[in-house]
């Protein structure tokens, strides 16, 4: 342990506690070493590496088509976006024109993934604050999207639907119908989220003014996604460096200035409304045509460096490929949002109570495999 026990003037001692690697609210094998003064948190020190699978190193052994499968296993709740990012980077390198149909499908799938990830987050957030019912409500809506994915992609969690040049299969015939039915249903369910949690007095007391992250801090730690935007850091990649179909659709970048737990919560709820809006604009105008462009079976990127970033449900995911012209990348690097977001946790939790730490961590929406890779 790196801690030196500090004696307080009144003779009391700080103590430390291991939160994790197995703990109900770290949602995975994350270990936080908390230095506490009674219930008040003095320091939070994340210890990583419990689920490190060296995905970046494995990428150097696999060819480009195989790499996509690995990225599902990073941020498993944004599997589509991860695949999408790698495919875009590879397509940049190959200079392949992706068919319009595939572009629209990818965008719709990305937004559906965002909704499903946020519904799950909402449920877990409630559970972290002690309202277990929200977990079941969140899962109910998550399940609908999972079923839609299952029909088209054949998988429920690790979709691996994107391939270089487009998507792997065409849409299931029921896709449009089911997605529309889901959206109509979900628009009546989202207000329920507000009545159960967002307007609850205890919930407001627990989240407002808690775990504040200033805009300067958000920028210097690189906190992106809803967590960063709740602090006023305009970091939506879909808006500022648009890819796929995002330049052509109309949506708002959710920005709050408070930077507390509640605005991070609110940012995600609002993002779900924006995602609904995006899907509604696209679902009726999916163009006919090919769903995948012709690429060679063995992909070889030209010598050089390729970078692509996308907006996942957690923030900015960057994919960096260094190619030496072989079948495999020379080096591959992922800039995962979870890692940067976690690094700011100490700033947010310092001075709060243990319960505040749990609430704050919950609004960062950490997925541990994304942090460790």
């Amino acid at each position, binding site marked *: 342990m790196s801690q030196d026990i500090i004696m307080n003037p009144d003779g009391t001692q700080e*103590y430390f506690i291991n939160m994790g690697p197995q*703990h*109900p609210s770290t949602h995975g094998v994350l270990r936080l070493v908390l230095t506490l003064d009674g*219930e008040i948190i003095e320091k939070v020190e994340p210890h990583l590496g419990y689920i490190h699978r060296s995905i970046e190193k494995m990428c150097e052994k696999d060819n480009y088509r195989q790499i996509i499968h690995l990225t599902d296993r990073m941020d498993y709740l944004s599997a589509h976006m991860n695949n999408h990012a790698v495919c875009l980077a590879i397509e940049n390198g190959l200079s392949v024109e992706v068919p319009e149909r595939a572009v629209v499908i990818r965008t719709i799938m990305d937004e559906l993934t965002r909704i499903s990830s946020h519904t799950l987050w909402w449920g877990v957030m409630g559970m972290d604050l*002690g*309202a277990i*019912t929200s977990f079941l*409500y969140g899962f109910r809506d998550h399940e609908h999207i999972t079923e839609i994915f299952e029909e088209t992609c054949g998988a429920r969690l690790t979709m691996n639907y994107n391939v270089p040049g487009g998507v792997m299969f065409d849409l299931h015939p029921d896709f449009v119908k089911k997605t529309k039915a889901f959206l109509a249903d979900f628009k009546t369910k989202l207000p329920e989220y507000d009545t159960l949690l967002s307007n609850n007095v205890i919930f407001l007391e*627990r989240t407002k003014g808690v775990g504040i992250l200033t805009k300067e801090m958000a920028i210097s730690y690189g906190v992106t996604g809803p967590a960063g935007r709740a602090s006023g850091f305009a970091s939506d990649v879909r808006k500022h460096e648009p890819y796929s179909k995002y330049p052509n659709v109309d949506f708002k970048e959710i920005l709050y200035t408070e930077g507390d737990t509640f605005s991070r919560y609110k940012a995600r709820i609002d993002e779900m409304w924006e995602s609904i809006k995006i899907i509604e604009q696209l679902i009726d105008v999916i163009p006919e045509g090919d769903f995948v462009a012709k690429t060679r079976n063995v992909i070889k990127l030209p010598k050089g460096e390729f970078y692509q970033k996308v907006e996942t449900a957690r923030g900015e995911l960057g994919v960096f490929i260094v190619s030496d012209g072989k079948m495999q990348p020379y080096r591959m690097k992922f800039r995962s949002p979870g890692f940067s977001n976690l690094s700011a946790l100490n700033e947010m939790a310092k001075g709060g109570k243990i319960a505040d730490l*749990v609430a704050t961590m919950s609004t960062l929406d950490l997925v541990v495999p994304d942090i460790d890779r």
Partner: protein
Amino acid sequence: MPEALVITIEWITMGTLAILFVALLGLSLVYGERKVAAWFQQRIGPNRVGPQGILQTVADITKLIMKEPLTAGRSDHFLYNLAPFIMMLAPFIVISMIPYAKGLHILDMDVGVFFVTAVSGVGVLGVLLSGWASNNKYSLIGAMRSGAQIVSYELSAGLAILTVIVLSGSLQFSEIIESQREGWWIFRGHIPVWIAFLVFLISGTAETNRGPFDLAEAESELTAGFHTEYSGIKFAFFFLAEYVNLFIIVSIAATVFLGGWMPFHIGGLDGFNAVMDYIPPIFWFLGKVTFLIILIMWFKWTFPRLRIDQILTLEWKYLLPISLVNLVLVAFITLMGWYF
């Protein structure tokens, strides 16, 4: 038969009955809680073991009994093993004081309410002991939270009951019920008794460590709080004590505010009262208790958990002053005879 033998036999019978009752209560309340939770969460709940899953809790308890009684290695073995029994002690004593129907009670002390309030304070000792003896920081934090919480909320719970004691003029449960023959205190006592009833419900929920006040075992913060290190039947004791305490709080609320086993009477309407008397008192009591239990379960499955400082703020800055003013108000009302 010599008198001593009669008394011994009576005690043993009563004790056995109380243990059986507590066991049955635990089983049915756990089952009820799971069904109620499922009902709030769009699930079905237990439905595989036995018809409608009613044997599920029996199976669970059987499993817990058959598990090895582990003692955490670096704990204080004596206190560690003692704590679950202290947890169970208070509910067992208090359960003997509750009037289930006319004359259906084990003890009817003339200072019954005082006795119940005093004895239920012992429960916190079990929580503190388990937290301290487990030698686990999570347990310790949980125990400290729970200690602060239970001790604080006993104040306003006591003050809330006092309002009705002022109105009825007795500390004996049977007399408090008898005084509600013309109508339950919640209807006769105007708004102050309503306030007292709400304060009692809130502080009762807090005293039993149930959500939204369950921060002593706050799963998402402290894994399981004070009983983190317990497993098997010792854990079951903590679990059981929680449910029996729930029942106790609810039956006291029903007895004091809602007339206990007394049917719904309106003073002056003799025909109506006679019809109400056809429903046996035990059903009135159980009906009221069930209603309140479902209400408290509803709290638990809807609200998020409070933070420790918010809990203490709620008690010391709001509930306690309200109860004190309320008590003075009720005393004034009683003095002037302004209740129905």
